[in-house]
C-alpha cells in the first residue's frame, strides 16, 4: 500500500488522529509519519478534512449555478478550482465570486459580518453608512450571544455615529 499523503513511498506506519472525539486513520510512509507525529497538532493539515468539507459545500452550489468556467480576472482562478481546493486565488476572488462564496461562509461561521480589528487606513475608507451597518450587525450578534455588555457598548457607538450623520 502506498503512503496516503505523498503517494510515493510504501506506507509503513499506521497513524490515528483524534479531532473532537472523531478518530481518523491513515497509512503513511515513515517520512510523512515523522512530519505528522512531530506536528500533527499544528492544525491537522494532513487530514485536511476542512478542504474537502469546503469543497463539497462550494461544489453543491456551483453545480446549481453551472458557472464553473467563470474566471477571476486578477489571478485566473476558475470557480471549479475553488470548489476542488476549498481555497480562493486572490483577494479579488472574494469580489468576483462573492455570491457563490457567501452562503458557504455563512455556513462555516454562522455569519458573514466581520466584528474584529479594522486596519487603521481602512477605517477612513468605510462610509458612515457601512460603519453603521457593521455596528448594527455586531450588536445583533452580541445580543444573540447574550453578551449584553458588548451589546450596550455597541449601542452607544451606534447612537454616537447616528448623531454625527445628522
Amino acid at each position, binding site marked *: 500500500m502506498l503512503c496516503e499523503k505523498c503517494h510515493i513511498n510504501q506506507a509503513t506506519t499506521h*497513524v490515528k488522529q483524534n479531532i473532537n472525539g472523531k478518530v481518523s486513520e491513515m497509512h503513511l510512509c515513515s517520512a510523512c509519519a515523522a512530519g505528522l507525529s512531530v506536528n500533527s497538532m499544528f492544525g491537522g493539515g494532513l487530514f485536511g478534512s476542512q478542504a474537502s468539507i469546503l469543497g463539497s459545500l462550494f461544489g453543491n452550489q456551483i453545480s446549481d449555478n453551472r458557472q464553473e468556467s467563470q474566471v477571476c480576472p*486578477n489571478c485566473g482562478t476558475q470557480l471549479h478550482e475553488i470548489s476542488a481546493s476549498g481555497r480562493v486565488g486572490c483577494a479579488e476572488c472574494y469580489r468576483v465570486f462573492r455570491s457563490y462564496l457567501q452562503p458557504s461562509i455563512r455556513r462555516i461561521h454562522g455569519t458573514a459580518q*466581520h466584528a474584529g480589528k479594522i486596519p487603521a487606513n481602512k477605517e477612513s475608507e468605510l462610509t458612515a453608512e457601512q460603519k453603521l451597518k457593521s455596528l448594527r450587525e455586531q450588536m445583533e450578534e452580541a445580543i444573540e450571544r447574550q453578551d449584553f455588555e458588548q451589546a450596550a457598548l455597541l449601542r452607544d457607538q451606534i447612537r454616537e455615529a447616528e448623531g454625527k450623520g445628522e
Partner: protein
Amino acid sequence: MTEQDMVLTTRIRLARNFTSYPFPAKMSPDQKRALGTAVAQAVENANFGANRLKVISLESLKEWELFALIEKHLISPEFAEHPVGKTLICSEDHTISIMVCEEDHLRIQIILSGLQLQKAYELADKIDDLFESAIGYAFDPELGYLTACPTNLGTGLRASVMLHLPALEGQGALAGLSATISKLGLTIRGTYGEGSEVTGSVYQLSNQITLGISEQHAIQNLEGVVRQLMRQEEDMRKMLYSDHPQQIEDRVWRSYGVLQNARILSGKECDRCLSDLRLGLSLGILPTVTPDTLRTLADQTGAASICVAAGSLLQPEERDNRRAALCREILSK
C-alpha cells in the same frame, strides 16, 4: 497546583494577505522571494526588547533542519513541504515566528509558555500594525481580513492552548467533553501514535470561528474553557492520587527510573515518561525535578532536535540511543 502544571504553551496566529500579489498558491518563486524581502524590510528596524529577528530563506535549510523547525512549532508541515521561495522570520528566543508564503502571505505567530493569551495577542497585534502601515492588507468591511481559506476570514486569528491532561484522559472523560467543546465553537485535538494513547497526553484547544467574533471575545471564550478544563483536571489528579497513592507514585518513579537509566529510548516512550514526570511534579512527588529540567528534556529529545544537535540525519536506532544518553545526562545534573 498551578497553571504551569497543566498548560504547556499558548499560541496566537494571525493570517494576513497583502493586495499587491495573488495568494501564495498562485505566486511564482520570484514573487515569493520578493515578498519575503519586502516583509523582512518592514520589520528590519523593529525592536522587540532583546529579541532580535532573523530572516531565514527556507530553501537554504537541510531536511532535518526543516523538521526541527516543525518540531518546535515555528513552522507548519505544509510550509516546509515546498520550501522554494519561502521566507521565515523568527526571533532568537523562538517566541515570534512569521511565515511568509505559507497558505497566506503572512502567518504571524507568537508562542509563549503557560497560559498567556492576552499577552501573546498583544504582541501579535503590535507586529500586525507594523506590516499594515508598511505594506497594506487585503481587507473587506464585511469579510474582514481576506484569507486563502474562507475558514480564516474575519480576524484571521487562531488562538490555541496546549494542555497536559493525563488524569482526564486516563479516566476516559475527554470523549464526553469534546462534544461540549465543539458546541462552544472550539476544537480539541490530540494525536495518536501507533498505540491507543495520545502522545504524552497533550491536547490542543483552539478557537474555530473567526468571522463575526472579535479577537477579544474569541480569546476570552477560549480562556474560559481552558480554566474549566484545568479545574476538572486538577480535581481528577487529586482524586486519583488520594485514592491510589501507591500506584501513582510507582508510575512516576518508574518513569523517572527509565529516563535516568535507559540505554535505548524511543520518542514515544520518552513522551510517555515525560508526561508521568509532569504529573508527578504537580503532585509534589518528585522533589528533585524542576519545571526547567522538564522543559529542557522536552525541547531536546525530539527526533529532529537530536539530528540538529548531531549535525546529520540520523537513523531511528541511532536517535533512540542518543535520546537515552541525553536524558541520562540532563537528569544527572
